[in-house]
Each structure stands twice: as C-alpha cells, then as structure tokens.
C-alpha cells in the first residue's frame, strides 16, 4: 500500500530499511524531521548533537565503528561540519555513511541560499539528489550500499520543496542491520600527513571508479522524447520540467557529482538544443561547458531563489504570466512575529528603550530585528553575536562596548557561543552578553538540547548548567534575570554595561509554546485611563491592538497576561480584569 510521506520521513525510512542504526543531527529547517522520524524506529540510536560538527564527528566514529550511520543538517550546518567532513572523505567509511544536506533555495527559513552541491565537488563526495519522496527513500537506501562500495561518505542533497512535500511512497522490507567488524587501521583512520597522502591517492582512485559507475547507474536516466529540445535536470526542477514541457527529451540526474560525462555527451549529440535547468549555481552547466558542449543555462535562468513551474514555462516557452485579479495591492503584509507572551519581547523592548547596539544571533529572537521592536544591528550566522560584539569593541573601543550587547539563544549558545565567549575573556574584552534561555530550540520547532536536560526521545538526561559553564570560562559577572520583569532587566543591563569586564546576563523564562497556557489573571485596558499614546502597541504583541475609531488600545483574545504591556503603560491603564 502506498502512502503519503514528506521527503524527510522517506529519508528516515530509507536509512532504517538500509539497516542504519545510528543517526545524529542538529536541528535546522528544512532538515529537522529526518532524525526525529528516525528516532521513532525500534532498535536504533538517534541523538541531537550540540552542533553539526559534533554530529558529523559522532557519525564518523559510528561509521568507523562499523554501523551504517545517518547524519542530517540544513545547508549552513554543513559549513559547521565541513572540517571533519572534508577529512572524513579521505579516511572513508567502514559502515556506510549518508550525510543529508537540506538546502533552502528561496530562503524560506535561512540566512543564505548556498548551493551545497559545491561541497560535493570540493570534497570529492558522491552527491545524490532525489526528486520525490519515493526516490528519497530508495536513493537513501542505495546510498548506504554505494558508500561502502566506494569507501566514501555520500551526500544526499535535498531542498526545502522535497523535504516538506508529501508524495506517494511504497515502503520496502527493512534489511537486518549488520555491524561490520572493527579493525584498527591507522593508515586509513589517522590523518597524519604521511598517512593522509596515501589516502588522497585512494580518494582519487575511488573518484575515478565513481566516474565510471555513474555512466551506468540506474540513478541517472535518459527519457527520450521529442529531440528538438533536450533538458538536463535533477531534483525538484525535474518535476517542473515534466510538468510544463510535455514530451521533450530529458536527462534526469539522480547523481549530481560526479557527472556522467559520456551519458551527457550522448544526450547532447541526440538533441537539437541542450538546456540545463538547475536552481541556484551553474554547477552542472559549468562542467558541461568545460567539455566543449554547447548548452543554454544561466543566461536564461536566474541564480536567485526557488524555481517554479510557471517560471520555467515563462523562461522556456515564453509564456506570459497570468494577469491576476489585482487585489494584492491593498493587502497588508503578514510578517512572522514573536508570539504573545514571548519572553524575548521584554528583552528587545528594553534594548530599544536603552538605545543599545545589538550584535544579534539566530533564533526566534532574530524577529526582534523587525518592526516595531527593531532591536538588532547585526545577525550573520549561529553563534556570531559574541564574536561580532568583541570585534565591534576592538574596532571602536570600550566606550562603544559600553553601549553594545551580544544577544544569543540558549540552543545557539551551546551550538557555537562558548568559544567566542572564551575569546572575550582571554583577549580582555568587556562585552555584555545576554543569553536568552527559553529552555528549548524554539525556532526550529522546540527540540531539546544539552541545557534542557532532555534527549531526543524526551527522556531525562544530564543537564548542562549554563551559569556554571559561563563562570568556569572565567566570566565573573553572571546574573540571572526574568526577561518579563522590565525593571530588573534594565538595572542588570545598566550595571553590567558599566563594568569594564565581561558580563553574562541569563534571561531565563521558558518559551510560551512549551506548555499550554491557562490565563488565570486576565487583563484589560481601562478606556478612562488610556490616552491612546500607543506605547503598549510598540511592544509589537499580538495580544493587544489599537482601536482606530476609539483611539484606544484594547486587549484581545490572543493575550496571555504576561504583564509586559502593563509595565510599559505609564498611565496605569492596563490592569487586571475586576471580578
């Protein structure tokens, strides 16, 4: 019986069917559901690692230890894991290893749209790209065999559209997991220069063998049709091509690194016009051009964003975009926002009020950068806030640092905020760092992490004590505040910013979505006292809105009575509902 599955669930299933017994990941949209689904199978080990580098290293160990291993992350996670990845490509595997790179063309929920097929080329990895959930399952399963056959980690590159689209899947029979023998083999697994030189020779040999394999692999196929146009494509764009182009010829690549040169040459010779359809970078196109084959590619298609069937129809067939109904002009935007009662709101309200410079980081709290809070100056990647604040200080001096804070979430701090904090202490910075500890990784859907004391299966485990850790690093000024107690927060900030020493303020309050909130102390706006000054509205909460006719604020059904707007109102107009 076929059933609907998102791509991510199908990948987890494929790994399970291949007999994988270890899976490790750090959450990140659109990859998160891969390992949460895998964790639901019996008899396997799954974990959240503190970051992607650790996930990759645990994966390497598990593979060397003989288990088939799945490692999953979003595209930017591969940057974090790149160091072990590049060299693990040299050592090769024992138990097969498949690394999922979940790319995000269109940046539905990412800070960049890098094309990780590039990693495959640089690290000489076999890169496989499925086009629907069935292929996600089947290709994952085959990827484990190929990993062992060619002694290389395999990258399965997917995109958001595949990860989160449900398509029909027929499950297979799981094979019994095999734990391969563990043998000490220093020349293979100890990457000293002397040994690594030997392994580089092996990498090139394997890669040559792969070049041959891909010419006949069932993962690549030519679908001959009308030969006036031939399109080379892969992944989700393959579906768009089939949707809009009818009976043309298509070379569908299931393996995007290495490319099957002979197959492509044969295809090129068999069609009048050769076009390459690939989202983001011209990875296939540049290689094909380098072989002296005439192709059309990025001169016709954008390097930006996610493609769509209508975009391909316009670029390939000159279709005219539909005129539409012309209503969108009057529609106000609906930006994503912090939830009513979110503890982060207190922080950004205060930072803005105090007119501080904010070196920000990635998480729900990045929404504090948007209107009306607008409380962030920089945000680059996970963990960057503390180093950025340090750099600002070293460029502009301590006066500037006295008006600057670094803001970082708890999951992000554990991920990559610890080493930059060590840098601040070591190199005698004076940064004030706020760790927004909401006891979860909220942005990606509430995964646990080392400081929540709960594992991926929701079982209790050792809990990282952030406060003790920060002290151990050498930060002497550490305090814990409630981010929704504005006076407390402001005092803490003033005092810590005034110090010519590093400080950490831990703003501690659980994410409002963690537990169902029952409002026991509802509040209201007293219309007699409300002057319509809108200072409460400027905290940007969905629980309070402005009534344009009455020119007064009013509490609405979204309110959870967190108390923030009450503290902001200078006219005492917001108060408990009298019973």
């Amino acid at each position, binding site marked *: 019986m*076929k*059933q*609907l599955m998102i791509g991510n669930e199908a990948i987890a299933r494929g790994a399970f069917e291949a007999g994988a017994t270890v899976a490790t990941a750090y959450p990140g*949209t*659109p990859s998160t559901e891969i390992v949460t689904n895998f964790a639901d199978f019996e008899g396997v080990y799954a974990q959240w690692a503190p970051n992607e580098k650790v996930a990759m290293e645990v994966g390497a160990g598990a593979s060397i230890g003989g288990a088939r291993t799945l490692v999953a992350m979003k595209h930017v996670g591969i940057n974090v894991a790149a160091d072990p990845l590049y060299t693990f490509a040299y050592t090769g595997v024992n138990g097969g290893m498949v690394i999922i790179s979940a790319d995000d063309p269109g940046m*539905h*929920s990412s800070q960049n749209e890098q094309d990780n097929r590039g990693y495959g080329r640089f690290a000489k990895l076999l890169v496989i790209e499925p086009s*629907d959930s069935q292929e996600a399952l089947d290709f994952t399963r085959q990827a484990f065999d190929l990993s062992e056959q060619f002694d290389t980690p395999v990258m399965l590159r997917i995109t*958001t*559209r595949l990860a*989160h*689209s*449900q*398509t*029909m899947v027929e499950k297979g029979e799981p094979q019994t997991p095999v734990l391969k023998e563990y043998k000490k083999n220093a020349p293979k697994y100890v990457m000293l220069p002397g040994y690594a030189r030997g392994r580089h020779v092996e990498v090139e040999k394997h890669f040559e063998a792969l070049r041959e394999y891909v010419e006949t692999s069932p993962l690549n196929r030519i679908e001959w049709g009308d030969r006036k146009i031939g399109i080379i494509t892969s992944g*989700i764009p393959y*579906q*768009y091509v*089939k*949707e*809009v182009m009818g009976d043309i010829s298509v070379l569908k690549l299931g393996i995007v690194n290495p490319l099957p040169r002979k197959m492509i040459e044969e295809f090129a010779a068999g069609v009048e016009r050769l076009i390459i359809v690939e989202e983001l970078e011209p990875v296939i196109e540049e290689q094909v051009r380098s072989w002296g084959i005439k192709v059309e590619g990025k001169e016709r298609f954008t390097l930006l964003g996610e493609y*769509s*069937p*209508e975009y391909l*129809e316009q670029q390939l067939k000159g279709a005219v*975009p*539909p005129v*539409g*109904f012309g*209503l*969108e002009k*009057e*529609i*106000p*935007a*609906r*930006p*994503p*926002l*912090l*939830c009513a009662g979110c503890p982060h709101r207190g922080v950004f309200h205060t930072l803005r009020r105090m007119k501080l410079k904010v070196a920000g980081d990635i998480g*729900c709290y990045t*929404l504090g950068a948007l*209107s*009306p809070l607008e409380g962030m100056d920089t945000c680059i990647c996970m963990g960057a806030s503390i180093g950025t604040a340090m750099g600002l200080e070293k460029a502009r001096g301590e006066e500037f640092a006295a008006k600057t804070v670094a803001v970082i979430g708890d999951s992000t701090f554990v991920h990559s905020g610890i080493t930059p904090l060590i840098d601040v202490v070591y190199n005698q910075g004076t940064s004030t760092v706020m760790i927004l500890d909401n006891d979860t990784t909220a942005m990606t*859907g509430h995964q646990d992490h080392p400081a929540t004391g709960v594992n991926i299966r929701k079982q209790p485990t050792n809990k990282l004590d952030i406060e003790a850790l920060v002290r151990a690093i050498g930060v002497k000024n550490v305090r814990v505040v409630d981010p929704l107690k504005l006076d407390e927060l402001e005092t803490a900030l003033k005092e810590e910013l005034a110090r010519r020493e590093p400080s950490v303020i831990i703003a501690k309050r659980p994410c409002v979505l963690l537990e169902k909130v029952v409002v026991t102390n509802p509040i209201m706006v007293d219309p007699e006292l409300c002057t319509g000054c*809108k200072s409460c*509205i*400027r905290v*940007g909460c*969905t629980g*309070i*809105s*402005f009534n*344009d006719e009455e020119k007064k604020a009013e509490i609405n059904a979204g309110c959870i009575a967190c108390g923030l707007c009450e503290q902001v109102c200078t006219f005492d107009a917001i108060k408990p509902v009298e019973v």
Partner: protein
Amino acid sequence: MMQDKITNVLIVGVGGQGTLLTSRIIAQVAVQMGYDVKVSEIHGMAQRGGSVVSQVRYGTKIYSPIIKKGDADIILGFEKIETARWLDYLKPDGMVIINNERVNPLPVMSGKAKYPDNIHEKIAAILPQTVIVNATEIATDIGNVKAANVALVGLLSAAVGIPAEEVEKAITDIVPRKALEVNLQAFREGRNRYRMAG
C-alpha cells in the same frame, strides 16, 4: 471514477488556524480514491503567525508538488486577506471558498496599515463562483470552535465533488476518537452549507 483531469487545491490561512489538518484530510481522501497525490507545505518562519499555504494536487499522474500561478481549481481561504493574497493562483474560472474570518496582521494591529474593507465581497464581485461561509460560527453552534477547519473540509470536498463517505472515512482515520463525533457533525454541516450556497 478516475478522471484524467488534475485537481489543484490551494488552502491558505494564518499559522495556527488548522489549515494543515484540512490539507491532510483532503490528501488522504485522494489517496483512498486511488489518485496520485502531492502536497506541498512550507514550514519554518511561516509558523510564527505568518501566512501559511498548503497545496494539494491529485490526478492520475502528478509531477510538480506546487501549483502554477493561475492554475488552482479552488482556493479555500481560512482568512479573508489571505484568500486575497493568494487569489492570483486561481484559474480565471476557478472557485473560492472564503471563511468570513478576520485575523489582523501586526501592521494592522499597530495602526500602520489598514485591513481592507469588505475584501470578501470584492472577491465575490470578481469571481462568480465564490462561497462565503462562517466556519467558526458553524463549529461554535455544534459545540467545538476547533472543528471549524473540518467544517471547511465539508465545503471543499463538496466543491471538488468527492463523495462524503470517502471523506468521513478519512476523518475517522485522522481525527482523535474523542473529537470524532463533533468533527463529523461539523463536516456534514459544511457539506450542507455548500449545497445551500450552490
């Protein structure tokens, strides 16, 4: 009753309104009926109160998981301005079901933007095949506000012409036991409303 034709359904709303359950039910029914089915949903930032969209496509063979602009047979809008926001995805002769519900986006709450007046009526004026319904009211009358999305399944399933028994089967599979009766009632009332509107 397999048809060669592909049916494209766009379900739009605001994060938290229950659009996901609706698309799940519709997709499940299409699977039961032996169609090829694809559903596309983007998670992520949209969950934080942003606009959400589910695309459901079914037919004998489906390639793209997303619907071309101007190619949706039907748009089911859980919220008025969200319906308008996605309207250009509709075929010129497509159908719109609008839940008469207003969820103010932040720029409106803070008084920086205006919520357009009577947007649902404007849509109805452009598109003769528009059904306006108050699903929250239907669900409240039945005794559980949360069943509003299943009431909308009633209207949607009638509009695309899938038999009630198939949908009831899917609802029974998907909805938790203790909420089943209310949801089935909401579904039937939704079906009814469609008939009355048609």
